[in-house]
């Protein structure tokens, strides 16, 4: 047997379960707004943006430091000078082969001209003696202006110049020059007048 108490609870539950209320406003638009702001896509985008920024910054800094001139420039000067010397030495070796061929031809010609004189002329020695000074000297002159800092070169040269020697005056000559000042001035004028110096006079 149902009591009134059970009946009331049951009635309330039944009514509430069957009831549907239509919203008074557009709730979906507000839900959509809040959802879009909470979606993780935006976070991913921020991470991507941050990663791109870091990458560009890193690459930029690397290129900047690579392109920056080094502070130890005097060493560079020395190195370039050494390199020039090395190049000067090496280049003739590379050109030896064609030179040797040319000289061989010359040798054959010489042989035909003077068969009696069987002097063996070494091709390498001839080539080096004759061609090197003429051909390679201009290369030296062209390579020197390629040095990056002329100022530093100038400084380096100035260091090599000899320091002026101090002139020490003998005290007796100094005393003599003071005592016979007039005579000395006359000789400076250019006149070759012979003067007599009276050593006894004061």
């Amino acid at each position, binding site marked *: 047997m149902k*009591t009134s108490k059970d009946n*009331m609870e049951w009635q309330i539950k039944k009514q509430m379960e069957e*009831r549907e209320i239509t919203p008074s*406003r557009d*709730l979906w638009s507000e839900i959509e707004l809040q959802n879009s702001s909470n979606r993780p896509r935006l976070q991913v985008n921020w991470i991507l943006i941050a990663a791109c920024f870091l990458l560009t910054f890193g690459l930029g800094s690397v290129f900047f430091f690579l392109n920056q001139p080094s502070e130890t420039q005097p060493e560079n000067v020395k190195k370039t000078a050494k390199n020039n010397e090395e190049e000067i030495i090496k280049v003739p070796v590379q050109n030896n082969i064609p030179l040797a061929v040319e000289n061989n031809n010359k040798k054959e010609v010489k042989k035909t001209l003077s068969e009696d004189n069987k002097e063996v002329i070494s091709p390498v020695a001839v080539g080096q003696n004759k061609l090197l000074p003429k051909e390679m000297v201009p290369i030296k002159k062209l390579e020197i202006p390629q040095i990056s800092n002329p100022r530093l070169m100038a400084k380096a040269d100035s260091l090599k110049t000899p320091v002026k020697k101090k002139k020490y005056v003998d005290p007796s000559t100094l005393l003599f020059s003071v005592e016979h000042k007039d005579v000395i001035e006359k000789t400076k004028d250019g006149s070759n007048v012979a003067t007599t110096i009276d050593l006894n006079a004061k």
Partner: protein
Amino acid sequence: MKLLFGNKKNDLLSLLKKQDPAAQKIFYEQNVKRFLSVSKSYVSDLYQAEDCLIKAFCKIFKHIESFRGESNLESWARRIVVNECLNFIKSHKTVFYLDEINQSFHEDIHEPEIDCDFNAQELLDQLPDAYRMVFNLYVLEGYSHQEIADTLQISMAVSKTQLFRAKEKLRKIYFQQQKKVKNENV
């Protein structure tokens, strides 16, 4: 289209887990009216009930991946709506729970039979918040007193007292309304 005509809950759930906006809208349209009714039974003001529902839907869509399929999706979502309403009441209103009363006093109540012709929402709206929360959780949601005690952070005895007083209050309100109607007819 498949969701609209096929009505497969598993497909809807998988799409909801992928945060598909179309699936979310379908789920919203399927449940908004019933969930608003649930929300309104806890929060008497319609505008505030709608606010609670918006927050609840956002939570449902956000934490859908934590749903393991052990229960029905609708009942899981309804629980979130209820929790959101309870949080709203706790944060916006001061709720007072009255002292315990004797257990024997609960059972010995005999009232005349009640007609089916009454508005349940009107009765619930006149209940104090503490009574309404316990009554709704016990009667509408089917919570036990232990679950109510855990949810509202009160003792089981207080939960039972609140339920008893809520029922008593409802009967009083109902009979007062009946008297008014009879006097108006006479």
